[in-house]
C-alpha cells in the first residue's frame, strides 16, 4: 500500500514537472519562433579611467591594479528576417568599474578646493596615486550580427547612470609650485601624503560605445568579451582641478547563459 502511494506521488510529481517543463519550453519555443533570445551574463570589468591622449604632464605609469569589478547583465536580442543574421540587443547591466594607478607627473597644473572653500592653485611635479571605484546601471543598445553558427558580434551605444562613485587618491614624493611654475616651491617627500577626493565632482550620467564578440562554447553557454568606451568626460563641466577629460575604457569578459 505504502509502496503504491509512494509510486503514485512520484508519478504525479513527474507529470507536474513535465507539464511545467512543457509550458516553459513552449514559452521559449514561442520566443525562438519570433526571433527573441534571452541571455544572462556575468563577467569582470578590466580597464581604467584615462585621459586620451595621455597628456604630456604624465611622465610614467608607475603602477596599475585592475581591482575586482563585477558586471551582471540581462540581454534580450531580437533577430530579424528569415535568416536571423542581424538583430538588435537591449541590455540591462549592473556593474562596477574601477582601478588603482600610480603615475609620475611633471608640471601638472591643478587647483584644489578645500572643504571650507579654500583654493590652492599651483603646479605639481611628483607622484599621484588614484583610486577609482564606480557603480553603474548601464543600458547598451546594440546591433548584433551572427558571424557564424557559434560567433556573434555586436556594437552600439550605451548609457550609464552612476548611483555612487569614488575618485580619490593622494600625491607624494614631489613638490608644488604655488600659482605657476615660478611660484614658491614647497616640497613633499618621504612618507608624507596629501590626499584628495573628487568623488563629488563625478558626472552621474555617462555614455559611450560598446563593441563585443560572443562565442557559443557549449549548448546555451556563451563566452563574451565586450569593450566599453566612454565618450563623455567623467567629471562635471566646471571642475578645473583635473584639467584634462577622463574617459572610462573597460573590457568586460565573462560567460553567459542563453535561452
Amino acid at each position: 500500500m505504502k509502496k503504491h502511494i509512494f509510486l503514485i506521488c512520484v508519478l504525479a510529481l513527474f507529470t507536474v514537472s513535465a507539464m511545467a517543463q512543457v509550458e516553459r519550453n513552449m514559452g521559449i519555443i514561442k520566443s525562438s519562433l519570433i526571433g527573441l533570445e534571452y541571455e544572462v551574463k556575468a563577467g569582470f570589468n578590466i580597464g581604467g579611467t584615462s585621459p586620451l591622449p595621455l597628456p604630456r604632464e604624465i611622465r610614467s605609469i608607475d603602477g596599475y591594479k585592475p581591482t575586482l569589478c563585477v558586471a551582471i547583465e540581462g540581454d534580450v536580442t531580437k533577430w530579424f528576417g528569415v535568416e536571423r543574421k542581424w538583430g538588435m540587443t537591449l541590455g540591462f547591466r549592473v556593474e562596477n568599474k574601477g582601478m588603482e594607478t600610480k603615475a609620475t607627473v611633471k608640471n601638472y597644473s591643478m587647483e584644489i578646493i578645500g572643504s571650507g572653500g579654500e583654493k590652492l592653485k599651483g603646479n605639481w611635479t611628483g607622484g599621484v596615486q588614484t583610486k577609482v571605484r564606480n557603480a553603474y546601471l548601464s543600458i547598451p543598445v546594440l546591433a548584433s550580427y551572427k558571424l557564424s553558427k557559434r560567433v556573434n558580434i555586436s556594437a552600439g551605444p550605451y548609457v550609464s547612470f552612476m548611483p555612487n562613485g569614488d575618485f580619490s587618491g593622494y600625491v607624494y614624493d614631489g613638490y608644488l609650485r604655488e600659482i605657476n611654475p615660478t611660484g614658491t616651491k614647497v616640497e613633499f617627500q618621504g612618507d608624507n601624503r596629501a590626499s584628495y577626493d573628487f568623488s563629488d565632482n563625478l558626472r552621474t550620467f555617462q555614455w559611450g560605445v560598446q563593441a563585443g564578440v560572443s562565442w557559443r562554447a557549449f549548448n546555451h553557454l556563451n563566452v563574451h568579451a565586450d569593450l566599453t568606451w566612454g565618450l563623455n568626460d567623467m567629471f562635471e563641466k566646471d571642475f578645473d582641478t583635473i584639467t584634462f577629460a577622463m574617459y572610462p575604457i573597460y573590457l568586460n569578459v565573462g560567460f553567459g547563459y542563453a535561452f
Partner: protein
Amino acid sequence: MNSLKGKNMKIRNLIGLLFSVFLFSCIQSEAPNAEADILTCTVPDDILKAEPEIENESVTLIVKSDADITNLAPVFTLTPGATINPASGTAFDFTTPHTYTVTSEDKNWTKNYNVRCIVSGISTEYHFETVSLEPKYERYQVFYDISSSGDVVNWGSANSVYVLTNVANKMTDFPTSQADNGYEGKCAKLVTCSTGSLGSLVGMYIAAGNLFIGTFDSGSALTNPLKSTRFGKPFEHIPTYLSGYYKYQPGKEYTSKGQVVPGKTDQGDIYAIFYETDDNVRYLDGTNALTSPNLIYVARISDLKPTDEWTHFYIPFVPRPGKFVDKEKLKNGGYQLAVVFSSSIRGDYFEGAVGSTLYVDEVEVIHSDNE
C-alpha cells in the same frame, strides 16, 4: 567551474598587463622645463660671511666689511635649460643691487631676482615699526630692520607657507603681522592659526605665529618643518642680555596633531641663541636651536605668564659650559645670533591652541660693547 574561474583570473591579469603596456606606450615626450630658478650662487669664498641666501625672488650675499664688491661677478646655476640675463659671471658694482631675469627652458615663464650684497650684520634694537609686503602678490607682511650700514634685513616667519592654506582673508589674519598699540608705536603680533581644510590634508592642523632672525625655507616646510626655520645671522658682538616687552594670552582649546587635549594650556616662547658656525654647521634650525654643541650663549624666558599688560623681560645670555668666543673668528662672521618668538612653544610639532597670541615690542640685544 574552478578551472573556469582560474582561467578568468589569468585572463584578467593578462588584460590588465596589456592595458598598462598600452597606456605606457602612449606616454608623450617630455615637455621642456617650465621652471626658472636660480639654484646656486657662487662668489669668491673669502668675501662671504655666511651662505648665500637664495629665496624665490632674491639672492642675498652677506659679505665681510672689508670685501671689495665694486667688481663682483657672481656665477649662477639655474633650472636645467633655463637662461639668465645678464649672463652668469658678468661683473657688476654690487654697492647697489642688480636685477637678473631668468627665462625657463620652454620660454613661457620668467622670474626676476633681486641680487644684492649686504655688508654688516644685524641691528640690535627691534621696534617692529617697518614692514614690507610679499613680493609680487602682496598678501602678507614681512618685518625688516635697517642695519647700521643701511641694508634691509628681513625677519623670518612662516607666512610664505601659511599663505598656501588660503585661510587668511587679510594680512592681519596671518600668523605673523604688525599691530597697533605697541609698547611704543607699532608692535609684532604672533597668533597661532588654524590651517583649514588644506592644512588638514597634509596633517598640519595649526600654524604657530613665529618671528625670528634668520630665513624660512618654504621648500622643506611640509616635508621637514623643523628644518625649515633657519635661525641666525652673522653677529659681531658678544650678547649679554635680551630685553623687551611682551603680552600673551593662550588660545582656548589645546590640540595636538588635530586632536583636542583637554586640560592643557598653551605657552609662548621667547629665546635668543649665539652660536659658532663651521664647515658642517652653517646655521641652526628647529631640530637643534637649543641643543646643538655649537651653542655658546642661550637666553630663554622662564616665565612667560599670560598677561594683557605690557610686561618687561630682561633675560641673561647664559654661557654653555666650556665654550669661549674667538675674537678673530667673531670679526670674520664666524658666530651667529638668532632671536626667536613663538605664540606656541610646541608649534613646530603642531601642538598648541588656535588663538594663542604673543605681542612683542622694543626688543634689544644688549652686548659687551655696550658696557
